[in-house]
C-alpha cells in the first residue's frame, strides 16, 4: 500500500495540534478547554502512529495506547475538578478562577 507518506500525516497532525492549542488559548469554558486538550493528545497520537509505520516498529503504537490511557485519566480528573468547582457555585470561566481558596 503506497498512499500518503509520513509528511502528509505529520502536517495533518500539526494542524490538528494547532487547532487544539488555539482552543485552549481562546476559550474560557473549562469543559471546552478539556475537549481541545483531547484534540492535542490525539494529534500527538497521529504523529506517533505515522512514525511507527514509517520505521516499521510497533513501539510507537504502544506509546499511542499509553497516551490514550493518560488522556482518559486526565478527562476523569479534569471533569471531576469542573464538577467540584461548579458545586461551589463559582462561574465556570477560567479567567475568573484565579484563587484556590475561593
Amino acid at each position, binding site marked *: 500500500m503506497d498512499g500518503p507518506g509520513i509528511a502528509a500525516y505529520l502536517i495533518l497532525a500539526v494542524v490538528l495540534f494547532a487547532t487544539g492549542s488555539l482552543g485552549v*488559548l481562546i476559550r474560557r469554558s473549562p469543559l471546552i478547554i478539556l475537549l481541545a486538550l483531547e484534540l492535542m493528545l490525539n494529534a500527538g497520537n497521529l504523529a506517533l502512529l*505515522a512514525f511507527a509505520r514509517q520505521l516499521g516498529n510497533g513501539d510507537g503504537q504502544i506509546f499511542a495506547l499509553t497516551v490514550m*490511557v493518560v488522556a482518559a485519566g486526565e478527562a476523569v480528573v479534569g471533569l471531576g475538578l469542573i464538577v467540584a468547582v461548579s458545586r461551589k457555585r463559582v462561574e465556570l470561566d477560567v479567567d475568573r478562577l484565579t484563587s484556590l481558596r475561593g
Partner: protein
Amino acid sequence: MTTLLAASAGNVLVWMVWIAAALALLSSGLAVVLFPNPFYSALALIGNLASLAVLYLLLEAEFVAAAQVLVYAGAVVVMFLFVIAYLGGRADAPWAGGPTLQAVAAIAAAGTIAVEVVVVVALKAGDELASPEQISESFGSPAEIGNLFLSDHLLAFEVTSIVLLVAAIGGVILGSAFPGERGSEKGLE
C-alpha cells in the same frame, strides 16, 4: 501491467479516503474549538475521533483504531456529555465578543506552531522522511500489540493500571461531597 494499474487504482482509493478523512478531521477539530455550546463541541469531537480512527486504519494500526473508537467515542465522550448535561445551562461560557487582544495572540501562537512544524516537515520531506517503509504482515495486529505489551513494555502496562486506579479514586473523591461543604450542598437542592 495489470498489477501496476491495480496498484495505482489502489493508491487513488487510499488517497481519496485519506483526503476525506483529513478534511473531516480538520473541520470537526475546528468545530470543537469554535462551537459556543459545549454539547455541540463534544458531539463534534465524536466526528473528530471517528475520522482519526479511519486515519489509524490507513496507518495499519488496527488495534489502536478499535481502541480509539471504544475508549474515546464510547467512554470519554459519553463522560463529557454526562457532565455537560449535569452542569446544564451554566456550562455556556460567553464567547468572546469581538477580537480581544488575547484572541489575537492565541491565533498568532497557534499559527506559529503550525507554520513552524510544517516548514520543518517540508524541509525534511525529501531525504530523511522519504525512506521506504518496511512493515511485517502482523504489524499493528492485536497479537503483535499484546506481545509487545507483555514483553518489552510490561512496566508501562502495569503502571497504566495504577494510573487508571488512581484516576478512578481521584474522580470519586472529587465527585463526593466534602464534610466542610454542607452549605453548598444544600444550595444545590
